[in-house]
């Protein structure tokens, strides 16, 4: 811990959203899918991401970004070019973050999860050569995104399942530390922020994330992790989360909504919360649900956020 303003609770959020009215929880989504935009009457363009974010009262927009689309899975959202970041940033209404697949994620995109994990156990030298090739491409892409005006990067790298890390934390250290320390250094030198997304239960990896000096976590699940515990583990970090998948379903019972309100009430005082779903907004019916969820969050009162 230091005495720098950014290292105080909520300092990073204040730096990211300098003009934001005090008391409102900042909001954003890592993934907004094509059907979700269509439900709101928009086609899936960078301009329309800005428009829809504005309509929903979001404070940031995130654009999944890639320089090659050949191995990207079809998951209901599109990838944009780095130049689209400039278009979105030009609207000036929101903080714009580029969402970039990390090296492990890229290897999984290409070879599949099972083959990738077998490759790690079977031949680490060959694996690390392939990983290094991916990391160099991703660092180049990240630099392009920064040049185009991205104020934050969300790196998506699924390292865990619901049970915990898919490989041991020691192995993730060996595999990923070189990439993340370089990425953090580059992004921090540009005065921007790096958030990390991984599915699954990541609590066992938080000491590593802390050592890499990432600024926070994005689209992480409350269910397997408990966001309040995660925040205690990363007291100066940003937690971009709070909305688990079951809350987005139209027949959501009062239980999940009560849990959500209680969790938000516990997370708000730290000032490090950006309200976000853990899974992305893909389906048309998410449009009505997210408005309802935002209204629930605003009922909480100002807090310290």
């Amino acid at each position, binding site marked *: 811990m230091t005495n720098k303003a950014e290292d105080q609770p909520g300092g990073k959020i204040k730096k990211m959203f300098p003009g934001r009215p005090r008391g409102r929880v900042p909001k954003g989504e890592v993934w907004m899918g094509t059907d979700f935009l269509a439900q709101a009457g928009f086609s899936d363009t960078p301009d329309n991401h800005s428009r829809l974010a504005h309509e929903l009262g979001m404070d940031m927009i995130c654009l999944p970004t890639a320089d090659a689309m050949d191995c990207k899975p079809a998951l209901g959202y599109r990838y944009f070019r780095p130049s689209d970041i400039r278009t979105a940033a030009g609207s000036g209404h929101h903080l714009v973050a580029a969402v970039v697949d990390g090296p492990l994620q890229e290897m999984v995109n290409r070879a599949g*999860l*099972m083959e990738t*994990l*077998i490759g*790690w*156990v*079977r031949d680490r030298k060959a694996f690390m050569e392939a990983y290094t090739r991916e990391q160099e491409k991703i660092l180049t892409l990240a630099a392009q995104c920064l040049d185009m005006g991205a104020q934050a990067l969300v790196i998506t790298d699924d390292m865990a*399942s*619901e*049970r*915990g*890390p*898919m*490989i*041991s934390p020691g*192995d993730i250290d060996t595999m990923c530390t070189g990439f993340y320390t370089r990425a953090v250094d580059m992004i921090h030198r540009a005065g921007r922020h790096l958030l990390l997304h991984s599915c699954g239960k990541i609590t066992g990896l938080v000491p590593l994330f802390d050592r890499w000096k990432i600024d926070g976590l994005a689209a992480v699940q409350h269910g397997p992790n408990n966001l309040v515990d995660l925040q205690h583990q990363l007291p100066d970090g940003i937690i971009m989360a709070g909305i688990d*998948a*079951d809350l*987005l*379903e139209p027949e959501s019972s009062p239980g999940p909504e009560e849990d959500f309100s209680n969790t938000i009430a516990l997370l708000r005082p730290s000032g490090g919360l950006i309200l976000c779903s853990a899974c992305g907004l893909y389906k048309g019916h998410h449009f009505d649900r997210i408005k309802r969820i935002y209204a629930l969050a605003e009922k909480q009162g100002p807090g310290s956020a």
Partner: protein
Amino acid sequence: MTELRFDEPGRIDTRQGERLMELIADLREEQALLEIGNMLASGWKSTDVMEYCLQAMREVGKRFESGRYFISGLIMAGELMRRANELLKASLVQKQPESTPGTILLGTVSGDIHNLGKNLFAILVRCEGYHVEDLGVDVGPERFLETAVNIRPGLIGLSCMLTSALPELKATVELLHDHSAEHGAPVMIGGNCIDQHILAYSNADYWAKDAIQGIRICNRVLGKG
């Protein structure tokens, strides 16, 4: 992968079985396969070698449950067993008719595309000797029923990770139960969102919190354990 070279035929050394178990449990792939080749060359029966392989896989499962191994280790062990099976298969077919404790029909229900847990379960039950008919992900109720009627499995496993797919899970169980006279198989459900409450909601016969528990249920239902 390196080319495997086996010893010349010789005397059976019972310590080889213990050594093979240790090599598989430690995920030393090439050495384990070399050991299997050497055992076969020394006159070991394939079925005896396979028994040591299965004991080793149970040890891998224990290491996974205790947190010593992660999912990568479990997947690697499955891959090792796949290669071991290839080595043993020809000999098994020659010496005795292939027997299996049963067939398991498997798939992720409609509306859900997650497959990690399902695939892990498939690897492990194959290692136990079961035949697995895996329909993949996003499988509708009718396809489950049609396949079940055709192959008459000993157990049907439905995987579901997303709460949003629970209505599909329930509909699939209902359809399978309505036609149980045509296939005769009980239904087990598993996945991240599955618990005792979802078992009651879906009216399935069994639920498993993970792949290891799923194997125990298979062995119990199909009379192997």
